[in-house]
């Protein structure tokens, strides 16, 4: 397929996934606010701090009130990572590959954007934020389902899925990072059943509470971290996402056994390192540092995907694609 089209697909669905996860992160805070009235003042700033966007926020708003943070992360069209901006970018990318995706996908993408866009004008969303963010999640899920059900699972679909998976791995790690930072600054509290309410909120923000309960029962920070980082079956866990992304990548390149593209090498290594990690080890050497490293390597994977597939290469097509790296 066209390099440009592959790039647009990849990014369109990364942006959708990003929008969905911003909604999840905000929803978690809303939940906490309801459960712990009176203790909300400093729960909102971390939402933008974790993405490294503090400067952007401070430029625009005086105080980190819930309304300000929600407005910034949801509707601020001057901020490129707000839900609205993400969906606009997603839709523009989808629009330029309109002929590659199914009409059902396009219609849902369009409705999704128009729904958030009109909410940004009416102010309805912030009067009943929980409902609104739930609708954002549902719209994203609907799009994901339509994609799986109406688009051939061909190369184009693999780029769509890979975009979602790479972004989701990144976002889940962020949610874990920010919450861990607030919830558990002291390492000696690990393994004590403190703050059940807050950890429940973290799991719920990843739609993982029920699945976690089935698997581990008690809410323990150690196992929650294990579940969100290293589970192979929960679809929002980082390792699951990396395994899926890796699968997409191999299907795109066609599983050539001897030759690997750089993106394949980096992603294979990352997922293999992760799958051999033990939670205890991660916690001892610092979860925050671990997640930092993970995100850095994910960025490297993103850059390699770009140069392997999107940067216009003027080499003639080979049966197995253009290859310039091998797995050492």
């Amino acid at each position, binding site marked *: *397929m*066209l*390099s*440009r*089209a*592959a790039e647009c697909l990849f990014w369109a669905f990364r942006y959708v996934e990003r929008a969905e996860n911003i909604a999840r992160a905000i929803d978690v805070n809303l939940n906490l606010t309801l459960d712990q009235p009176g203790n909300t003042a400093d729960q909102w700033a971390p939402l933008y701090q974790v993405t490294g966007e503090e400067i952007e926020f401070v430029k625009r708003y005086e105080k980190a009130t819930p309304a300000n943070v929600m407005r910034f992360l949801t509707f601020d069209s001057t901020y490129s990572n707000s839900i609205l901006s993400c969906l606009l970018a997603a839709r*523009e990318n989808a*629009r*330029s*590959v*309109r*002929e*590659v995706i199914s*009409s059902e996908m*396009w*219609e849902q993408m*369009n*409705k999704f954007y*128009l729904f958030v866009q009109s909410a940004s004008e009416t102010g309805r969303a912030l009067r009943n934020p929980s409902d609104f963010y739930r609708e954002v999640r549902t719209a994203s899920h609907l799009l994901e389902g339509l994609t799986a059900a109406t688009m051939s699972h061909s*190369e184009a679909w693999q780029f769509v899925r890979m975009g979602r998976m790479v972004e989701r791995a990144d976002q889940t790690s962020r949610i874990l990072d920010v919450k861990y930072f607030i919830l558990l600054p002291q390492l000696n509290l690990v393994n004590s059943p403190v703050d059940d309410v807050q950890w429940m909120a973290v799991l719920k923000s990843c739609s993982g509470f029920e699945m976690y309960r089935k698997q581990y029962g008690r809410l323990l920070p150690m196992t929650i971290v294990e579940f969100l980082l290293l589970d192979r079956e929960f679809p929002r866990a980082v390792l699951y996402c990396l395994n899926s992304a890796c699968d997409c990548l191999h299907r*795109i390149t066609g599983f050539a056994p001897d030759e690997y593209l750089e993106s394949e090498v980096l992603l294979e290594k990352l997922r293999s390192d992760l799958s051999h990690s033990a939670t205890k080890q991660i916690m001892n050497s610092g979860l925050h540092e671990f997640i930092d490293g993970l995100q850095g390597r994910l960025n490297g994977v993103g850059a390699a995907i770009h140069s392997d*597939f*999107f940067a*216009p*290469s*003027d*080499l*003639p*097509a*080979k049966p197995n*694609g*253009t290859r310039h790296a091998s797995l050492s």
Partner: protein
Amino acid sequence: MLLDHYDPGEFYDEYFETAGTPRQSCQLLLQSLEAMSPFELSQRQSAAEAILLNLGITFNVYGDERGKEKIMPFDILPRIVSAEEWTVLEAGLRQRVTTLNLFLDDIYHDQKILKDGIIPEHVIRSAKSFRTPCVGLNPPRGIWCHINGVDLVRDGTGQMHVLEDNLRCPSGVSYVLENREIMKRTFPQIFRGLNIRPVNDYPGKLLAMLESLAPATDGPPHVAVLTPGSANSAYFEHSFLAMQMGVQLVEGRDLTVREGRVMTRTTKGLEPVDVIYRRIDDDFLDPHAFREDSLIGVPGLMEVYRAGRVAIANAPGTGVADDKVVYAYVPQMIKYYLDEEAIIPNVPTYLCWNESEKDHVLKNLDKLVVKAANEAGGYGMLIGPHADQVTRDAFAEKIVANPRNFIAQPTLGLSRVPVVTGESFEGRHVDLRPYVLCGGDSIFVLPGGLTRVALKKGSLVVNSSQGGGSKDTWVLGGGGAA
């Protein structure tokens, strides 16, 4: 009756012969509409608009920052064309397209029509859209114009005329197809009662025609639609047609020329393209052959085309027949090449390069429509009766300064069709743009075409860039409901 209070006014009305007397072809439709209240109809109008918005069927208006994306306004009352009238129009369109292709092949080769004095040589020499790099080219099967959109209008007596030909990149056919889908959702019961000729085989016919142009290749030909990009006003149509045909939609930057072939840049390296349905103007196609500053074209494309290793539809150079001065000679061309009379006449046209016609135009500016020879989209136009004296004087100066660039036509009282205005109905002026595919062996005329409607009360300008909308066009099948 629903349209009891509708006033056809002093214009030719497509629904009514006179107030209260429907045309025969519209009787069944009007009977079916009977069952609906004006409120219900207005509800359905809103529902249709909501569908358009959700589908993102929009166009971009240049130089309009706020809300640059708009839905093409759509009116749910269809325009009806009887089977008898369509038979005549279809024959007229075939005749015209056949002639124009003969003309284009002649004008880029021997120019017999000039030597025989049918068209003055200076008219062609001064045509901006005559492309010298195209002289001597031999497009596959000698066909230059593969996709033609011919604008038809009625005068006050009901006679159809050709207002202009669009031989470069005629747009709008996607609206024809989408309008029909929306109408099926809006009025399913009416479709069951009427024998309406379908339009949805257009993309299939278009693809077959494009594939027939391909140079000999090993495998099945690779067809691509070439778009200037998603900022273009007709981008929706470009992606729609690519999707409907199942072919790639490419931009200039996706293409490159390598070893004498046009290639696409893919995730697996370069892959060849055999047929390009281009939706960008000649000027921008290839910076080596035409405008050097074009960033949306493909350097070296014309070289490959000249070598016969890629087909381009429409061929570069077709725009010369769009020149409104050249247009005026089409009836003579028909006589010259086919020895036939034009089945659909032109609108009478005054050519300002001709001294006496120019004088006539300047004296009668308040009655005429004046058009620049190379403009489209309703730009560069003066509607004399609707303009004030200052505007007319300014236009007169332009004509005097460059008479070759202007033509004038009588102001036609275009026919009208009712549109839904809240819960009542008013007549609005319309034109009709049928689409003709020409692949060499056969010509396909899409039954109907795009009915464009000037939604502003009293306006004669139907262009979407100037507040026009569209309607579905129903060509009735012969033998069935008349």
